[in-house]
């Protein structure tokens, strides 16, 4: 498989961390894409901003820690993270410490991210 492809892939996340398994499966895709040296960006929208909260303790519900999985992404060379500003405000998380250095973006800036991406994937 070629790994010198310059395509920009925008991964749009919208699932809450533990309401279903899609959040985890989206991260599994991101890790695979990172292993194949793909150029990926993550955009956290809607309920998915909750994935970014620190100090998650999901062992009680037999789940893997989503924030720890996300924290592994920079180790694999993924370093472009964006978070929907209005979703953060909606949950009162504008000043909450997040597990990734995600840049808050307005809806206008999100449109620009979408326009600039070659491929988008929605989870």
């Amino acid at each position, binding site marked *: *498989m*070629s790994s010198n*492809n310059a*395509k920009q*892939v925008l991964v749009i996340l919208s699932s809450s961390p533990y309401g*279903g*398994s*899609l959040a985890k*499966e989206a991260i*599994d*895709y991101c890790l*695979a*894409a990172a292993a*194949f040296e*793909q150029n990926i960006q993550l955009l956290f929208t809607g309920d998915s901003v909750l994935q970014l909260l620190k100090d998650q303790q999901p062992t009680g519900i037999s789940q893997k820690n989503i924030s720890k999985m996300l924290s592994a992404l920079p180790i694999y060379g993924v370093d472009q993270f964006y978070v929907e500003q209005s979703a953060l405000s909606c949950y009162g998380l504008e000043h909450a410490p997040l597990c990734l250095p995600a840049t808050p973006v307005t809806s206008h800036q999100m449109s620009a991210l979408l326009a600039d991406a070659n*491929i*988008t*994937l*929605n*989870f």
Partner: protein
Amino acid sequence: MNYSLVVLGAPYSTASATTALNFAKALLSSGHHIFRVFFYHDGVHSANKLTTTPQDEINIPQQWQALKEEYNVDLVVCIAAGVKRGILDSSEAERHEKNCSNMSNAFELSGLGQLVEATEQSDRVVTFGC
């Protein structure tokens, strides 16, 4: 144009699986090419050949199989998501010591690298969510 489809929704629970199928048919009948259809998350259930529907309802696995026979569409089920949800081909069934398998031969179990390759090789990737 060269398309890939990502199917995340379970058949009969969400509109995702039938919409993806209809979209695939529309693409192919309009002369577009489908590089791959990748079944992920609950979308893996679209590969279950034991799916049995009333006569007046659409049989989604059979319809994908028909599309495969006519257009040789590459239908890939994520192995991790599939096996976890009980979608096994005969070799996985044997490997995990199960006494039966249930995946249609029209589909192939493989890894997430196939989705990565689909994003590389396609002009458009369309996600059918859940």
